[in-house]
């Protein structure tokens, strides 16, 4: 008799627990989640326009890197380094304009008195001097405060 009573009580307890358990699940209205990537945030995988001059300049830059720069060490006080600046300039503005940008950079590099009153600092302590500031396009210039450290 007692055992029957206990069983019934147990079932009732269990039933009541089951009835009222997890009610939050209904209340919070769980949303269906879509994992498809939105068009706007799809990574842009378009390749950089690899022009012939850029290919040639990149080739010579690699030769320079292999036979001179890697042996000489990381001595350029700028970021990007002068050789990379040349490649990026040609990619940014074409061969003629890129060459002029490089010669200007080279002259600035020869200035022994250059300092952080002229250039912002890259996080590794070099002067940050990107080529897009020298394309003669006012819209492309991103001004950074000289001496400020950039991540």
């Amino acid at each position, binding site marked *: 008799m007692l055992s029957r009573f206990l069983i019934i009580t147990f079932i009732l*307890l269990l039933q009541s627990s089951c009835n*009222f358990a997890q*009610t939050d699940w209904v209340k919070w209205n769980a949303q269906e989640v879509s994992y498809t990537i939105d068009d706007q945030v799809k990574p842009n995988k378009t390749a950089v326009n690899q022009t012939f001059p850029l290919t040639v300049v990149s080739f010579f830059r690699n030769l320079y890197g292999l036979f001179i720069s890697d042996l000489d060490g990381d001595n350029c006080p700028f970021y990007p380094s002068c050789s990379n600046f040349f490649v990026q300039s040609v990619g940014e503005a074409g061969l003629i304009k890129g060459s*002029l940008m490089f*010669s200007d950079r080279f002259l600035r590099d020869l200035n022994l008195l250059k300092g952080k009153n002229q250039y912002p600092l890259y996080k590794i302590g070099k002067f940050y001097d990107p080529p897009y500031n*020298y394309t003669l396009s006012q819209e492309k210039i991103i*001004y950074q405060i000289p001496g400020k450290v950039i991540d």
Partner: protein
Amino acid sequence: MKGFLINNKFLFCIYFLFLLPIVLYSQNYIDQQNLFSPESRLKFGSYLYSEEDYLRASVEFREYLKYVDNDTVRFKFATCFYKIGRFQEAADNFKGLFTSRNLQQESKLAYYKSVFFQKNYSLFRISFNNEFHIPWDYKDEIKRLYYISFFFDNSVLPDTNNFFSSFPDSNKSVIKQFYFRKKFPEYKNPTTAALLSGLIPGLGKIYVGEITDGFTSLLVTGVLTFLAIDNFKHNHNFRGWLFAGLGAYFYGGNIYGSAAAAQIFNAGVKFNFDSDVRLYFEKRNYLLPEIKL
């Protein structure tokens, strides 16, 4: 064990009778409160608002406003967007309060502020010039904001008399400085810099303030020119042409670089002006009153 159970069955019955209702009604207290009623939403939203958790507060206010139309809550709802920098949504919601009885003036002021901080200065000026829902209680503030907006874009600055008269005397001297800095910026002309470097290598760089770069350019091109002439004189034509070519290359690069340096200089002038103006007005809350509900 069995004997124990049989002997104490009454106690067990009592025990289970107590336990059963506890389990049955354990969750019901929360149900009775109905945390998702409009009133609870409002309470929670107001708490979040006071804690400056504006994003979540806006969600609670939105739910509340589905059931109850309340201007104060609607104003707070719009303010949430304003505070988190969603100025377009803020402006849209403030617009809905233009016919409100109590918050009409404040919502119009907040609308103009939202448009201003959205950096939609042209819309701001068109609205002001056409007297689109001008809050007459705050007309002076809006007028000041109207004139401040000219500092932030490339529009032509208005006449000085009207401009300065709208600012309090304590700010006038600084505003005058900003006005003339904007009107007559100390820009360097890239063409002049390039021409000067064409005349004397490095002079364009000195003109834009890059003095050491200028002297370096002069030195390098000078040395290369000297080497070219000297080699030609001594009939070393190959070396002569080599140094002449290098000299011409750096000469051209220096002319180009002087123009680029002038542009960077101008970008710096603009940047410094913008940051000075923004800092000045932000510190003073754009000379606007703080609305507290």
